[in-house]
């Protein structure tokens, strides 16, 4: 089954699979940001007059929670567009 495949095509395919696996990291920030938004909505319900402060704190916390997802995204982008494994194999 694998006989007709060149090494370059195999490396490219594995890079694409790796990029897809790296994006599983998006689950964590999704849950975290949703939790933060839900808590902020509850806080606004309790204290509508503090809405500006609550929104600012929520956005800041969500930005920090997003970091791990962004790391996964950067790795996926590097695997897809920079292709370090292929250049390492070709010895460039």
């Amino acid at each position, binding site marked *: 089954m694998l006989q007709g495949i060149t090494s370059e095509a195999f490396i490219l395919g594995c890079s694409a699979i790796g990029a897809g696996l790296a994006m599983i990291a998006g689950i964590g920030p999704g849950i975290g940001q949703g939790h933060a938004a839900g808590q902020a909505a509850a806080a606004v319900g309790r204290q509508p007059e503090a809405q500006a402060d609550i929104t*600012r704190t929520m*956005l*800041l916390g969500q*930005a*920090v929670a*997003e*970091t791990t997802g*962004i*790391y996964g*995204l*950067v790795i996926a*982008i590097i695997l897809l*567009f*920079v292709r370090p494994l292929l250049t390492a194999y070709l010895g460039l």
Partner: protein
Amino acid sequence: MVNNSLKKIGVIFLELLIRIAGREIIVPDTIVNVWIVVILLILFTFVVNSKIKKANAKEIPSNFLNIVELLVEASEGLVKTTMGPQNMSFSPYILTLIVFLLVANLFGLLGFSPPTSDYSVTFSLALITFVLTQYWKFKNSGNLFSYLKGYTEPMALLTPLNIIGDLANPISLSFRLFGNVMSGGIIMALIYEGAGFVAPVIAAPLHTYFDVFSGVLQTFIFTMLSMIFIGGREA
């Protein structure tokens, strides 16, 4: 990276080719766009400067000066509430960050590739914040010994963790901005490629989200986190 698909959809590319001592150096379009933004902002400061010098303090200021005053007062209020009144000297840096990042993120709407989708731009901005953070920490702790002693808090065993935690700040700060702007650009390029004739209809609301909303939000978050890092609180 995604240059080929971007070229097809009509993104403006301004690349420079510099020859130094027989070697060719390609300056990518994002770096050229940074210089366009910088030159535009410098021209803007000259206009503001000359208008303020001509303005009469007893008269009502013009609309243009009103908006500039509004911007300066808003940034000073933001610095005051976030960093405290003792750190008001950082207000010019924060305003510069806000204006530069806002113009740079919204530059994609004009058909250029946004300057912040280049990692060197965001990393240099984060390095400025990092140097300011360490300098301010050093200045506040007085001498070198108490500055280094700050890393052994709360116990000596945690020193490597404190150092790694400090070094991770500029990396996470720059990757956050870069990843958001870059991924927005890639998704827009994919949509222009895939949608074909209906792309102008679909793309307009998506530009509102990826360029306007995301750009303004990332500007706010970058400046907010810079203020918190420099102010010395953990985040």
